């Protein structure tokens, strides 16, 4: 077993052990905190597909995170108010069913990623970053100016949505659901990166023109990766909105995009468990340093600076060594 595999196993073990301890010690807030970390990890795992394996520095992933959140918010809002989402040409009603909400969140985020990718991938470097950021801001201001769904104040959902066989209002059950989703996505990510598509994507990130000479279209590869990435981040958005029972334009802000990127960079860009470790560290810093000072992000900045300067593989890279990026 490689060192990185050991680090990954330890991270997974902690994700199981800490909430079990919290349950035993009757610390429900710790479970909520862990749920937040797991959902952030899922969002970052989505970005890692685009950033880590596709080499696309997207500063607009909050679009997908927020769309996922609004997919949940809008569907649940109409379900709780018993009003149809639309009446014509056919009736669409809201829903409180998580699987349906997840599906809508993933599809809407994937479509958004497709549209953004089609335009943004005509460029590269700083222009790509700016286009993704511009789309993010467009969607953000659209949400702010849409009073039907709360506008700037956001949208509250009174009761958490349901999942067959689970009582999602019980923190540990909702945590288990979120962790299961994260594990499935990480498993699929591991499969994806070892698949011919993943290898080609990795190669396209390293040397795009060489990929063309062996018959592959690097733009199409990156677009596919961006769509998958957007769908995963959208799923995380739906879960995040369900965790808070609230969705607001904050989920669509560029600061959110920055935070998701910070999770990936802290943990390790292109590392399978980098987003998980990064998101957990972020939530821990936010919780503990946030209790000490309201300027806790200064310390986060110092941590980020240290990692960028001295540990290119993020925390996972520092512990496990440089090695392969997808062990």
């Amino acid at each position, binding site marked *: 077993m490689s060192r990185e595999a050991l680090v990954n196993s330890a991270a997974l073990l902690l994700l199981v052990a800490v909430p079990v301890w919290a349950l035993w010690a009757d610390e429900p807030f710790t479970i909520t905190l862990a749920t937040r970390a797991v959902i952030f990890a899922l969002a970052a795992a989505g970005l890692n597909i685009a950033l880590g394996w596709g080499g696309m520095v997207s500063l607009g992933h909050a679009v997908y995170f927020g769309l996922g959140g609004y997919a949940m918010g809008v569907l649940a809002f109409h379900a709780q108010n018993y009003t149809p989402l639309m009446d014509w040409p056919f009736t669409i009603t809201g829903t409180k069913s998580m699987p349906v909400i997840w599906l809508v969140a993933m599809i809407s985020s994937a479509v958004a990623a497709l549209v953004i990718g089609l335009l943004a991938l005509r460029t590269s470097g700083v222009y790509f970053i700016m286009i993704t950021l511009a789309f993010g801001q467009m969607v953000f201001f659209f949400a702010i100016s849409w009073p039907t769904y709360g506008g700037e104040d956001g949208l509250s959902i009174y009761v958490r949505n349901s999942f067959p066989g689970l009582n999602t209002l019980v923190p540990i059950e909702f945590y288990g659901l979120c962790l299961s989703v994260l594990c499935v996505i990480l498993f699929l990510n591991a499969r994806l990166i070892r698949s*011919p598509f993943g290898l080609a994507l990795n190669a396209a990130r390293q040397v795009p*023109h060489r990929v*063309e000479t*062996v018959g592959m279209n690097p733009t199409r590869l990156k677009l596919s990766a961006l769509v998958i990435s957007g769908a995963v981040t959208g799923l995380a958005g739906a879960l995040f909105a369900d965790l808070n029972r609230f969705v607001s334009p904050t989920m669509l802000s560029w600061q959110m995009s920055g935070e998701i990127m910070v999770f990936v960079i802290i943990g390790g860009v292109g590392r399978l468990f980098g987003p998980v470790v990064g998101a957990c560290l972020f939530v821990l810093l936010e919780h503990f340093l946030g209790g000490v000072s309201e300027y806790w992000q200064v310390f986060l900045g110092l941590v980020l600076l240290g990692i960028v300067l001295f540990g290119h593989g993020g925390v996972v890279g520092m512990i496990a060594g440089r090695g*392969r990026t997808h062990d």
Partner: protein
Amino acid sequence: MTLLTLQNVTATYGASQALFGVDLEIGEGQSVGFMGRNGMGKTTTVKTICRMLPARGKMQFDGQDLQRLPSHRAARLGIGLVPEGRRCFPDLTVEENLGAAARRGHWDLSNVYTLFPRLKERRRQVAASLSGGEQQMLSIGRALTTNPRLLILDEATEGLAPIVRQEIWTAIATLKHETGMALLVIDKTLKEMRGACDRAVLLERGRTVWAGPMDDLTLELTETYLGV
């Protein structure tokens, strides 16, 4: 049957013209030596064939107009390139390099490993950690796994140790004699080129100046156009 046809192909790098009229024909299963001194336009011609550089003139592969195709589509038609320099995917292992672009056909992993047993020994190593010769073998293997109908080898033995060069030439001979693949070989070593190729095409200042059977390539021609 003619596989690749280039007629009066011209190409420029920005304002400077590099090709002034290249003519080249390669038949199915034929091996052609593409020769000329440094800077005469051999690699530029390869780039135009692979659609990495825009060009003018008639360019057809298997009856299809290459001019209309982007680089990846030309490769999908069956043009495999072993580029100048050892350009593998550095962070991928040998096996991953070979699998990244693989298409169905005779050249799968096992057949590439039979051609280059050294690659099998190094299959779990990342390409960046291989020696120059091994990287070149990997580059050839990667092009083979796309199962091309025409394989272009651009200076495949350049800068390699004599023993490795010999291995590469043996592999090229195997490709020529045991598969129906057409070859376009660019190299400076005339002796090996005579052994490996049926026909020769000489290039001088971006123009085709001579084309014919390798046996008809006289000392006078090689002295004039190759300086050897």
